[in-house]
């Protein structure tokens, strides 16, 4: 029996909608069968809480008296450079930005103890941040310097805007080399002594809607503890990768671009993160509700960790050199057991994405829906599908050469 989003919303308003998390639904479908469960269940909620580097936030700082033109000038928040290439007082802070005088990897491995991700966390936590501006001065914006404390409530708009979140599936990272390597997938011991993975598995948003049948432009979601929206597919969206018979990608595939009002978010769900020897990032909490419109969609949401497959990639050679080969495939269930076997060798595993927090997000979203405070949205447009031909390509490098005749 097919349902519509409007019908489900009516049940949510009346407090009659039947909602399960993506973890709970596995048992429900096993017990009741797909047909019966599809009649009963209205929404399945998902969640993920992991480092997502292509995240950031934009702000309107308000005008000073006399006015200052931050656009085209140099701006920092807690020493972290903000991008100011906009109108006078609009700024963007990216998750991986670091201070100009951060020692980086000069003493290897660098600590990267503070950066853009931490600026966003601190701002959301209500802390005071130091804003410095150096501007060139114009007739209409005469002021040239500013050094002041600011906090979230002082700003006009403060909006989280992430160009790539919620990667559908991710690599399992190992190190075949003979020295320790420091990567965005954590510290990897030589000769494959450990493996790090990053997925919420059976709770993961896009692994529960593998063919993007319900998620689309405008989908209302849990974002950073508040309410957010899907902007569109995220950068590096690559739906055409190999998939299992359930339609679940066996390699990193779809992504989402997300946005939401930072003033309504919570620093529990937006955390700055420091990766030794690599850099800083922002760990983002995302929860996607999946309306159970029909049996097929319910079938997709009943996926379990045993059905999810991730590729094992060597981060000493293959990854840095952008080579496609993988060392094998493992299931998320194996990764979560603490040990996988790669090329006949037993390797201990550790995660970078929090399954505990992912479950808390799915449960929070379930509570919001049950309370009738969160309604589902009809997507305005869908994401590029696996058969769309949409693909992610490498940079075609065309080295610059000086024009002939000029030295």
């Amino acid at each position, binding site marked *: 029996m097919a349902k519509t989003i409007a019908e489900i919303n009516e049940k949510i308003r009346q407090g009659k909608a039947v909602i399960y998390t993506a973890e709970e639904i596995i048992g429900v479908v096993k017990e009741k069968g797909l047909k019966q469960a599809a009649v009963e269940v209205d929404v399945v909620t998902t969640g993920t809480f992991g480092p997502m580097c292509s995240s950031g936030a934009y702000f309107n700082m308000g005008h000073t008296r006399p006015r200052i033109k931050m656009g085209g000038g140099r701006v920092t928040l807690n020493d972290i450079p903000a991008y100011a290439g906009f109108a006078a007082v609009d700024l963007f802070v990216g998750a991986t930005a670091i201070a100009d005088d951060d020692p980086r990897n000069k003493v290897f491995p660098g600590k990267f103890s503070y950066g853009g991700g931490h600026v966003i966390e601190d701002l959301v936590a209500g802390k005071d941040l130091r804003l410095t501006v150096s501007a060139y001065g114009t007739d209409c914006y005469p002021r040239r310097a500013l050094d002041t404390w600011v906090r979230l409530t002082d700003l006009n708009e403060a909006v989280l805007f992430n160009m790539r979140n919620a990667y559908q599936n991710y690599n399992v990272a190992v190190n075949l080399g003979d020295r320790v390597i420091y990567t965005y997938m954590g510290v990897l011991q030589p000769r494959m002594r450990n493996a790090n993975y990053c997925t919420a598995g059976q709770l993961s948003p896009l692994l529960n809607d593998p063919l993007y049948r319900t998620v689309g432009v405008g989908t209302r979601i849990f974002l950073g503890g508040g309410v957010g929206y899907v902007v569109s597919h995220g950068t590096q969206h690559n739906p055409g990768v190999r998939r299992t018979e359930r339609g679940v990608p066996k390699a990193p595939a779809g992504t989402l671009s997300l946005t939401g009002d930072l003033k309504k978010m919570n620093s529990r769900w937006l955390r700055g993160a420091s990766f030794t020897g690599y850099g800083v*990032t922002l760990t983002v909490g995302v929860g996607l509700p999946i309306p159970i419109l029909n049996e097929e969609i319910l079938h997709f949401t009943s996926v379990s960790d045993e059905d999810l497959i991730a590729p094992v990639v060597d981060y000493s050679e293959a990854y840095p050199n952008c080579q496609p080969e993988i060392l094998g495939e493992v299931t998320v269930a194996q990764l979560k057991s603490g040990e996988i076997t790669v090329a006949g060798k037993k390797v201990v595993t*550790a995660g970078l994405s929090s399954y505990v*927090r992912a479950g808390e997000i799915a449960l929070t979203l379930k509570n919001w829906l049950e309370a009738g405070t969160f309604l589902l949205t009809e997507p305005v447009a869908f994401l590029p599908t696996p058969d769309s031909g949409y693909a992610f390509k490498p940079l075609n490098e065309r080295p610059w050469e000086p024009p002939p005749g000029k030295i």
Partner: protein
Amino acid sequence: MGTPAGQDLTVGFVKQEPTMPQKKVVLNFPPHLIDQPLTYRLVRDYGLIVNILRARISPNEWGRMVVALSGQGAQIEAGLNFLTETGVVVEPLAQEVKWLEERCVQCTACISPCPTHALQVDRSNLAVSFDRELCIACGLCLSVCPYRAIEMSFA
């Protein structure tokens, strides 16, 4: 009283049976003491079981040893008093590594590097926990935690 010959005195992570009181301490040896067989004295004179968890001894430098001491009643304190009198600086170990639960997001990144399983994960729900008793303050977890949820204090 006989010496506990045959006891494991090598570097290892033996969890002692809870039959005898046990105490984990950091022993800091001034350079002039590093050639003294002080561990032997603890064993012979005080009847202590000395489990060396970590040690760093080099000529002409302060040596540092993390030990778990087991013994009868007041013997541990008596042994530590002896060490203090000879010039060894004794520090408690338990205060060294702190797991800041409210900063921890339960990502499990620290689990595989921890050699003694002091940082553990419950595989049924992937929740992280920290057992101070098992911690040897090796510090391997510090650089792998992206959230600065583990701190080592050198108080």
